[in-house]
């Protein structure tokens, strides 16, 4: 599955990109900018999950379900098991979201288009309702997350940033390996013609289910990293429909052209939001909406299409 993957251009560029972002964030940029990079990389994982799903024409309006589930899994592991180790936290977040995705996948794999999108939203709102009512999970106030540790030592902000970079690189490698595989190529094939895929002997529902679980794991991992980075989880900032909307927003803004696009898009989104809030606190949503409209009108392929016009890995779509 991973044979020769480190020699692939997308992965080499991806590793370079993450290194630059982490180095800028830890040594050069001021803290607020550094935070935007860190949050952008974390959120980019959820967007990557959404992008993988989108390549089969499946748009989830409720991916905050997994993002929030991963974040709350980290919070609960800390509260009930005392887990603060960052490796365990990310594993728990990914496993919890993956398990939920696996169970719900049996239902969602049968739906397409708007039904898939709205059913995803419905599930995320069920979780939101449960979390908002659950007093043992902090209700609408949420729960605080203690600083992460690694092998018993506190990680610190920079350490966490490096760890996020490490997780992003692993995710890029995994996503690329999946998309270049036979199973990954079914992504586009299913979008083109489900009947033919069935008659080639493969279950479309199974392929979608696998993809859905991968997507849920990535979103869960993103939630786990965000929980560790923010030090707080609450239903409004982790599971509400507007969080899912932001993920869809960033996916459109980033474009589906490359697995790096979600991270570029997510970092760009963090900065747009910060600046919009800074300069127009009463109308920041309007600025974000205007940005999306401008991208849809002038860059329908997303920000990545801009890179494709000027960069050397123009033809590569992985």
């Amino acid at each position, binding site marked *: 599955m991973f044979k020769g993957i480190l020699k692939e251009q997308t992965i080499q560029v991806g590793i370079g990109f993450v290194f630059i972002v982490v180095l800028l964030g830890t040594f050069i940029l001021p803290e607020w900018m550094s935070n935007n990079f860190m949050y952008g990389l974390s959120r980019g994982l959820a967007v990557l999950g959404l992008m993988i799903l989108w390549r089969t024409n499946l748009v989830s309006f409720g991916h905050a379900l997994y993002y929030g589930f991963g974040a709350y899994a980290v919070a609960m592991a800390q509260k009930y098991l005392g887990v603060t180790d960052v490796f365990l936290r990310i594993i728990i977040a990914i496993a919890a979201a993956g398990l939920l995705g696996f169970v719900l996948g049996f239902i969602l794999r049968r739906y397409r288009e708007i039904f898939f999108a709205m059913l995803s939203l419905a599930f995320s709102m069920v979780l939101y309702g449960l979390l908002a009512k659950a007093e043992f999970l902090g209700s609408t106030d949420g729960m605080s997350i203690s600083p992460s540790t690694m092998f018993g030592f506190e990680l610190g902000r920079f350490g966490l940033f490096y760890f996020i970079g490490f997780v992003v690189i692993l995710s890029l490698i995994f996503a690329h390996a999946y998309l270049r*595989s*036979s199973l990954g190529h079914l992504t586009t094939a299913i979008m083109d013609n489900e009947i033919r895929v069935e008659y080639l*002997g493969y279950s479309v529902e199974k392929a979608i289910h696998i993809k859905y679980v991968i997507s849920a794991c990535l979103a869960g991992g993103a939630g786990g990293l965000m929980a560790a980075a923010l030090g707080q989880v609450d239903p409004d900032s982790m599971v509400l429909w507007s969080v899912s909307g932001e993920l869809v927003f960033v996916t459109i803004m980033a474009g589906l052209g490359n697995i790096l696009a979600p991270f570029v898009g997510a970092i760009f989104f963090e900065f747009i939001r910060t600046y919009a809030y800074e300069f127009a606190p009463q109308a920041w949503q309007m600025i974000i909406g205007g940005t999306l409209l401008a991208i849809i009108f002038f860059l329908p392929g997303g920000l990545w299409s801009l890179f494709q016009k000027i960069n050397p890995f123009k033809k590569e779509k992985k």
Partner: protein
Amino acid sequence: MAIKEILKTSNLQKSFSGIIAAEDINISVKEGEIIGIIGANGAGKTVFVNMITGYLKPTSGTIEFNGSDITGIKPREATHIGVCRSFQVSQVFMSMTVKQNLMIAMSLAKKSGSQLLNPIDDENLSKECDKILKQYNIITQKDLIVSTLSQGMRKLLDIAMAVVGEPKILLLDEPTSGVSVEEKFGIMDIVISALKKSGTTVLFVEHDMEIVERYVDRVMAFYQGQIICDAPPKQALKDKKVIQYVLG
């Protein structure tokens, strides 16, 4: 040595909300036979193909393949046991290149389980793929996006994709429909010679009697959901009922 019976249907029937689309279909197909299925529009030919390949579940009756009951089987299960098909309207992946289409078909046919996680652009698979593209005379179009191809090319690709799974029986639904007069014999020559070489049993739905006469061992003529004639082509095409209800 007696030739083995590969496909048998007994009292096969399909109705849609009370309207009978296929009735009392009893056939027996021997291994290696090439059979032409003819009939006017709405005679039940495609319904028959759809039932055999699992696209439609029969209302009643049974389908036996190599002695096993396969009635109501799912399309992918049919493919796994060696019952494959092509379509009246080519079912290919329009946004991909010709080679990508065939590579997907081949990797699904040749790989299973965790092997599907290996990169699709495997060197051996690619060589094998080029060989098949050459055999089907679409090698020069291998890097073209399928939506830019002619109907004839798409039909060939559709058939090639069905064949890579090494089917025991192949059902072709109007392989020359929408294909130009110049292309149709070329396509059938390529397809039939390749399938004869591999000993595949073929059933194909066809409206063009020149094609039927030239390529098949046996003709099954459908009319109002029933088989009205099952005979060698020379005999079938002179049959009174066939002339009246099919050839007009």
